[in-house]
């Protein structure tokens, strides 16, 4: 009798083990730490619970840069994950390496998942696409820079959030200064004050259609509009209207969270984190200001954040699993969950409608700001940009901007240096693709 029971148990274990083996397992390397990482794990758990055929395992690989480097090293060793998260600045590297990834559009079509690029909200569609508008990477955590403000501070100063930099300079900032605040800080000069300066004002950022059409590209960063902007920023800093706390993201966000700085330019994806922090004041957000002197019709901004790439060299069964995961990921419910938890924008129109219908934006008006900005009028230069060695180009910008703001160099020299060094890197990148 006991023996029989034992046999039955053994058989049951053996059976469930085979059942487990029948699941196709795939891995997902990502760079989402802390609260974002928890949301990633939740998405993976929900996907695994939603069906019995596939199992995805998310693995946190450190910062964006570290994740990309780990993925490249793994790819060269033939140990790549099925899904890898690559950030905006790494897009040219991963998309340039044709054969490293399966274009997401092909992956979905081959595995019978419906795909229509027009289902995605406008600002998200082409950032990770190739020059023929074919989507290569699946936009995942998509954010855009927006202006957060301390409502108590603005009320005390008797001003409203600025729409333009002219308004900031003449009205908002001086009033905030009189009320005892530093008016503004920002967390990412290359992203907010360079890349999105270009998209917001519909200025070309690089030759060859912002770099999409060819690797033989030159950067167009050394232009009068952006130089005037940085001259103004330097003046704001000298007059106590703006402060720069170094290149780190958190170092610039902290004074805003402490209530010393009244307005902070961060990511729409910072929203979830700010909510959780239980700040000692009420905050809200508004769209990224623009210079009326440059344009009277501000355009949509670029998305920042990262996309998910399906790595090549995997079996058909695993690719099918990856496609199914993308189907799950882009479903309105998943997107709405992600949007609510993190503040990253929902990437599809359907998910945006779901959030709206649920009253999410009535409860948190700030959550809609990023979406609106990405849905704003498009221009010739707002699709995105594609430049190789862009991580290094950003590092050059950070270095020179830091030197401007600490008085080590002037705006004119700094932009000449950025232009020269970036173009040298772009020329080198073109050779790596040969």
């Amino acid at each position, binding site marked *: 009798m006991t023996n029989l029971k034992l046999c039955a148990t053994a058989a049951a274990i053996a059976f469930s083990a085979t059942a487990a083996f029948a699941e196709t397992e795939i891995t997902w390397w990502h760079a989402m730490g802390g609260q974002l990482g928890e949301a990633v794990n939740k998405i993976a758990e929900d996907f695994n619970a939603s069906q019995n055929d596939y199992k995805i395992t998310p693995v946190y690989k450190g910062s964006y840069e570290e994740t990309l480097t780990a993925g490249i090293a793994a*790819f060269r060793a033939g140990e790549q994950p099925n899904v890898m998260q690559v950030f905006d600045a790494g897009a040219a590297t991963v998309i340039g390496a044709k054969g490293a990834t399966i274009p997401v559009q092909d992956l979905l079509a081959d595995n019978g998942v419906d795909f229509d690029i027009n289902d995605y909200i406008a600002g998200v569609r082409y950032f990770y696409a190739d020059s023929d508008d074919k989507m290569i990477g699946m936009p995942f955590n998509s954010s855009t820079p927006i202006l957060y403000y301390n409502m108590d501070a603005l009320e005390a100063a008797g001003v409203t959030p600025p729409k333009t930099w002219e308004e900031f300079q003449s009205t908002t900032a001086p009033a905030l200064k009189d009320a005892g605040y530093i008016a503004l800080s920002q967390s990412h000069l290359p992203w907010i004050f360079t890349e999105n300066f270009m998209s917001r004002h519909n200025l070309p950022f690089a030759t060859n259609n912002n770099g999409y059409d060819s690797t033989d590209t030159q950067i167009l960063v050394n232009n009068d509009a952006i130089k005037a902007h940085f001259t103004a920023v330097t003046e704001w800093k000298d007059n106590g209207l703006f402060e720069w706390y170094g290149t780190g993201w958190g170092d610039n966000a902290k004074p805003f969270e402490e209530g010393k700085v009244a307005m902070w330019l961060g990511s729409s994806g910072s929203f979830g984190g700010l909510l959780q922090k239980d700040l000692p004041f009420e905050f809200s957000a508004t769209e990224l200001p623009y210079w009326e002197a440059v344009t009277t019709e501000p355009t949509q901004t670029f998305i920042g954040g990262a996309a998910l790439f399906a790595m090549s060299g995997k079996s058909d069964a695993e690719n099918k699993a990856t496609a199914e995961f993308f189907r799950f990921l882009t479903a309105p419910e998943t997107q709405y969950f992600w949007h609510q938890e993190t503040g990253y924008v929902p990437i599809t129109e359907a998910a945006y409608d779901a959030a709206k219908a649920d009253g999410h934006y009535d409860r948190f008006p700030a959550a809609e700001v990023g979406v609106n900005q990405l849905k704003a009028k498009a221009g010739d230069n707002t699709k995105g940009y594609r430049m190789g060695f862009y991580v290094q180009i950003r590092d050059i910008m950070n270095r020179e901007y830091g030197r401007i703001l600490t008085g080590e160099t002037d705006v004119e020299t700094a932009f000449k240096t950025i232009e020269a*060094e970036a173009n040298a890197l772009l020329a*080198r990148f073109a050779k790596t693709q040969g």
Partner: protein
Amino acid sequence: MKRAGFDTIWLPMALLIPQLMIIAIFFYWPAGWALQSSFFLQDPFGFGSTFVGAENYTSLLGNDQYKRVAGFTILYSVLVTFFSLAIALLLAVKADKVIKGAKTYRTLLMWVYAIAPPVAGFLGILFFDQSTGPLTKFFQMFGWDFKLGVDYNATATAMVIVAVWKQIPVNFIFFLSGLQSIPRSVREAAMIDNRSATGRFWQVTFPLLAPTAFFLLIINITYALFDTFGIIDALMKGEPGNNPMTLVYKVYLDGFRGNDLGGSSAQSVVLMALVLLLTVFQFRLVERRIHYT
């Protein structure tokens, strides 16, 4: 005196093999790869690559930022080596004289040795925090608006201080044992000849310490050039920005963060050549002036 020796060549060879293997696998093999890839520009994923000859080297020479980093590396190495040796020597001389509670003093002074470089870097971040760091406040007392990660000189100062602090115990241990190995008779004889303690130190003690000091000099230069990586990385908080950095850190940044394998390889070859030169120089010129007892 009878010379001990092996009867066959095979046994000593066999005994050497493990060490040679380690050197071959962890040094010659990667160094060979670095040399090879320094002549190419290649796609990080390994799809395309172009032979560019010496272009990776020539573009380094023409790069102002590279020169700036090289300049900082030299200054940094000199400062870190000098201060960690000087302070450790001073502490060792003083600790050598202590009789009561000598062990406690020595243990306390050696303690820091156990701290890993990145941890030292994080401690540095706490000490130099922009708003709450005690050392930030200390410098501000003297009217220096010290801001880690914002001001180039402030960050450089923090990097030097943390690196020196971390290295003092190692030097201290070596200097102290060096001092204790100087025969008592020599010191007593010196005491008769010269009444000035400073004179005795420079004329007798220091020359006898020279073998130790020379060894430490090499160790410290290597430390400043390479092993401070963890400290620098921690103090930069992941964003190079306008912060100072050493050549080794730039190899890492361009190769691992920027995925420029060719350029990064060329830089590491330059570093290898530099270290080779430095070693030859040290052994040819400096060591000749040192007398081993």
